[in-house]
Structures are given as structure tokens and as C-alpha cells.
């Protein structure tokens, strides 16, 4: 894997911030885009743009084909069974809302339980809280002190009332991979539906829904080189078929009468209105890019960078690492006496972009006993030199705060 060559594909990496080259260490928030994806968007609008599915002329034919080909690309990418299982959404948040509002709302009842973990992103917490008004209980599996999920507690908390287990594949703070196959097996043995938040895993490792055997998987294109506002909800066909649509309107219908309508076939039943062809084309191009490099290589590269970052950070006085033992692709940390926002702001002065704040994971922050963290996350275009620059620049932070 030739990182220097990869970097040339990312125009934004040529940018200077305060006269320093940009060091972008916030890909876990959103990734940068290669020229291939940017050009795919440009070409689509310059050559093929039309509202798909709706008419009979050639541009419409092409746009429809490109949109549905992108779906087929996703089918293969995550090893789904067929097109009917792939719903294009805006982002992971929306996918979770579809699961909660169109599946759980209709199928769970008072006394039922949903099992989450304390390390979930708000996207996998807040939607589920809607169920509480129906008397459904939301429970949270704790982590162990090394930052990994407490599997014993998870097993203990499973009961005959547990109707859904929804877990992130990879924590966006701890970087830890949860044992998703094992959790899936426990869930299914218990008769519970199994939902996976793949927002942090799908961008940088091979995720195979057939192997994981999850009932739903959600992820966002923008974290994996694709444009904003395209994401995927994978769902098993048998389940999607039984669900009511989430949004209603045009394109998701078969026939509209004044007072009743019938729904279109899967997957379109869940895609109301003019779809995002641009986004689908961008996602398809992003998948090509990732597959050409090889997701195994991407994963390995992130492992190397993470190892290097941890080694370097360990030598910095006052730094406390908050990532999990088996964490990967990111380091979350704390610098004694300095708020994460101040760290991020001072690093920015040297062109370094890291994330600071609660990481959309307030329950985990409370569990870790912190109010916020600083996080540097890595992707295929980052280098060890960038990590060195980041760690070295922490000295500037200390200087300002006289630590």
C-alpha cells in the first residue's frame, strides 16, 4: 500500500492551515474524498443527471441504471443476498430511525427490553428512547475497566424480554471492536433481533452481513470516502417485508387512491421522493477505491499508525490514554489540566485537525468519568510523520497552559 500515492488522490491534503500543511486526524468524524469520487460526482452532473425511475428517455435510463448499479455494488460489498436488502438512506442516524420507528415501534410492547451498550454513539441511543413511551425498557451493558465490552454482563442482562440487541461494531471513542459474531449468536439464541451500527467498522475493514448474521446493519458513506448524505440500511428481506414504510410519498408507492395507497416493492418502499443518485454514484466509486487498495490493507495500515501513536503518546507527560486495550484506528486521550477543546484549538495552529468534545457519546463520557476527550483518528491517507507532528505539537499545548 503506497500511502504517498494515495495522498496524491486527495486534493484537500495539499491545503495549508496557518502556513502548515493540513494534518487531518479526524476521519472517524468524516473522511476526505479522493479525486475519483469528486470526479464521479462532476461527471454525473455533466453527463447523466436525471430523476431516476420516472421516465423513459436516455438520461433517465442512465441515471436509473447508475443508481441501481450502486445498490448492487453495496450488495456485493457487504455480501447481502440481493438488492431488496439495501436501502439508501442519508446517514447512520436515519437508518437507526427507520429500524426504531418502522420496526420496533410496531413490534415491541410494554415490558419488552432493548439491550444497548454504554459505548454507543447517540445515533444508537436516542432513537431507542422513543420506545420508552410504550413501556419498553432500554438497558445498557457496561464496559470493563480496560475499555472492552463486559460480555459476562451482556449474557446476564439477556432475558426472555430482550427483543432487540443493538451494538456498535466499533466504538468511535475507544476504537474497540466488539465481538459481534458472538453477540449475534447470543442474541439469536435468545430469540432477539440483532442490530449492528457499522458506522465505524465498514469504512476500514471487511464487514460481511452473512458472516455476522445481523438482522440490520447501518453505515454512512461520508466516513468512507463517499459524499455526504448517502448511507445504507441493510435489513434481512423477511424483516423489511413485514415493516411499514418510514417516510411516505412519491416513488415508494404502487398505487395512490384518495384515501389509501399501496406500497412499492423492496427496496423502494423505503425510499420516498427523488433519490440521491449523486450520492449513490459517489458511494459506488468510493467502494471501488477501497476495494482496489484492499480493506485488509487499510485495516493493517490503521493498526500500524495506532500502534505508533500509542507508543509516542505514552512518553508525553500528562497524557492519559482512554482508548480500549484492543482499540484501533484512533486514540482518545486526556491531557491533565487542559480541556480537549483547548488542545484541538492549539493543535490547529500547527495545521493539525483532531476531534474534541463529547464525541456524541455522553453516556460513555460519564462512564469514563470525563466531560470530554480529544481524539486523533487515522485513515488510509495518514502517515507516521503526521502522527509525529501531532504528538510533538502537544508540547505547544503544554506551553500555553504552562504545564
Amino acid at each position, binding site marked *: 500500500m503506497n500511502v504517498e500515492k494515495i495522498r496524491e488522490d486527495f486534493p484537500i491534503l495539499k491545503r495549508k492551515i496557518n502556513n502548515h500543511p493540513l494534518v487531518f486526524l479526524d476521519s472517524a468524524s468524516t473522511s476526505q474524498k479522493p479525486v475519483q469520487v469528486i470526479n464521479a460526482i462532476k461527471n454525473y452532473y455533466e453527463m447523466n443527471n436525471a430523476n431516476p*425511475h*420516472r*421516465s*423513459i428517455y*436516455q438520461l*433517465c*435510463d442512465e441515471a*436509473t*441504471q447508475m443508481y441501481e448499479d450502486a445498490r448492487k455494488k453495496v450488495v456485493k460489498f457487504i455480501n447481502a443476498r440481493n438488492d431488496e436488502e439495501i436501502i439508501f438512506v442519508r446517514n447512520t442516524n436515519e437508518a437507526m430511525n427507520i429500524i426504531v420507528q418502522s420496526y420496533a415501534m410496531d413490534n415491541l410492547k410494554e415490558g419488552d427490553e432493548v439491550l444497548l451498550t454504554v459505548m454507543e454513539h447517540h445515533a444508537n441511543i436516542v432513537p431507542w428512547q422513543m420506545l420508552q413511551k410504550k413501556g419498553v425498557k432500554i438497558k445498557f451493558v457496561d464496559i470493563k475497566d480496560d475499555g472492552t465490552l463486559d460480555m459476562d454482563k451482556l449474557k446476564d442482562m439477556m432475558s426472555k424480554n430482550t427483543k432487540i440487541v443493538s451494538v456498535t461494531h466499533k466504538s468511535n471513542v475507544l476504537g474497540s471492536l466488539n465481538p459481534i459474531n458472538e453477540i449475534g449468536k447470543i442474541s439469536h439464541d435468545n430469540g432477539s433481533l440483532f442490530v449492528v451500527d457499522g458506522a465505524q467498522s465498514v469504512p476500514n475493514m471487511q464487514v460481511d452481513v452473512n458472516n455476522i448474521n445481523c438482522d440490520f446493519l447501518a453505515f454512512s458513506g461520508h466516513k468512507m470516502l463517499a459524499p455526504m448524505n448517502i448511507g445504507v440500511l441493510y435489513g434481512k428481506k423477511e424483516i423489511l417485508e413485514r415493516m411499514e414504510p418510514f417516510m411516505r410519498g412519491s*416513488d415508494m*408507492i*404502487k*398505487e395512490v387512491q384518495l384515501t389509501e395507497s399501496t406500497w*412499492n416493492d423492496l427496496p*423502494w418502499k423505503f425510499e420516498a421522493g427523488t433519490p440521491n443518485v449523486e450520492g449513490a454514484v459517489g458511494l459506488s466509486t468510493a467502494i471501488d477505491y477501497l476495494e482496489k487498495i484492499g480493506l485488509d490493507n487499510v485495516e493493517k495500515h490503521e493498526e500500524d499508525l495506532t500502534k505508533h501513536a500509542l507508543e509516542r503518546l505514552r512518553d508525553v507527560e500528562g497524557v492519559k490514554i482512554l482508548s480500549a486495550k484492543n482499540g484501533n484506528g484512533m486514540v482518545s486521550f486526556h491531557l491533565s489540566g487542559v480541556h480537549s477543546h483547548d488542545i484541538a484549538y492549539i493543535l490547529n495552529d500547527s495545521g493539525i485537525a483532531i476531534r474534541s468534545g463529547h464525541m456524541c457519546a455522553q453516556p460513555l463520557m460519564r462512564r469514563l468519568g470525563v466531560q470530554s476527550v480529544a481524539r486523533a483518528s487515522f485513515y488510509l491517507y495518514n502517515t507516521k510523520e503526521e502522527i509525529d507532528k501531532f504528538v510533538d505539537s502537544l508540547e505547544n499545548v503544554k506551553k500555553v497552559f504552562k504545564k
Partner: protein
Amino acid sequence: MSLEIYHETILAHYNNPGNSGVISDADVISKDNNPVCGDVVEIQVKFNGERIDEIKFQGQGCAISLASVDILIDAIKGKTVDQIKNFRQEDFLKLLGIEISPLRLKCALLGLKVLKTGVYSYLDNNTEST
């Protein structure tokens, strides 16, 4: 995409569909539409055991979808349920003898979809009752 799809046979079937009509004592009535354009096709079938005895259609739609269903019915009249189950999209498109662009594929295949749905529901009912 070209205008060759409107060859003589297609236009003839569209203008004078020989299989248009209803069956008073049909065993199966199957209907579906194409949500893109609103084309509707309904097929009525009377079986004689495993074999199609009589088959008619009604529909509203473009030349391609209506001619296709008329041609389809000519082709499968008198065939057995098993033969229809094994009759694939490719077979039918070969029979039509025209190159269909992706967006018109749904027009051309609407009749076949309705027919298969009808045959499967006949089989289901038959299996249940035995």
C-alpha cells in the same frame, strides 16, 4: 435504444390484441402495476388440472407492455404449470425478439410477472386444499 422495438409484430399485437378479454369462471385473477408509469395488467386463467385451459388479459399501458402480454399469452396457452414455472425472463425476451432498454424492461416483463404471480397463487391454493 432504437425504434426497432416498434416492429410490425409488436404494433399488430398492440392494435389488435387477440387475447384481450375476461373469463367468467376463472380460477385465478392476477393483477399488478408498474409504479413508474402506472401501467396495469390483469390476467385471468382457467386451469384444466395442471394445464392452462383458457387465458385472457386486460390492461392499460404502452405498446410494449400490452403487446408483450398478448404475445406472452400466445406462447404459453395450453402449457402446464411446470412449464410456466420454468419459463424464464430470458426465454420470453428471446421470443419478443427486440432489444429492450433497462427502463422498458419493466414494461416488457410486467405481463410475465403477473402471470407467474397468478400461477404461484394457484399452486399455493391447490397445495393447501390437498
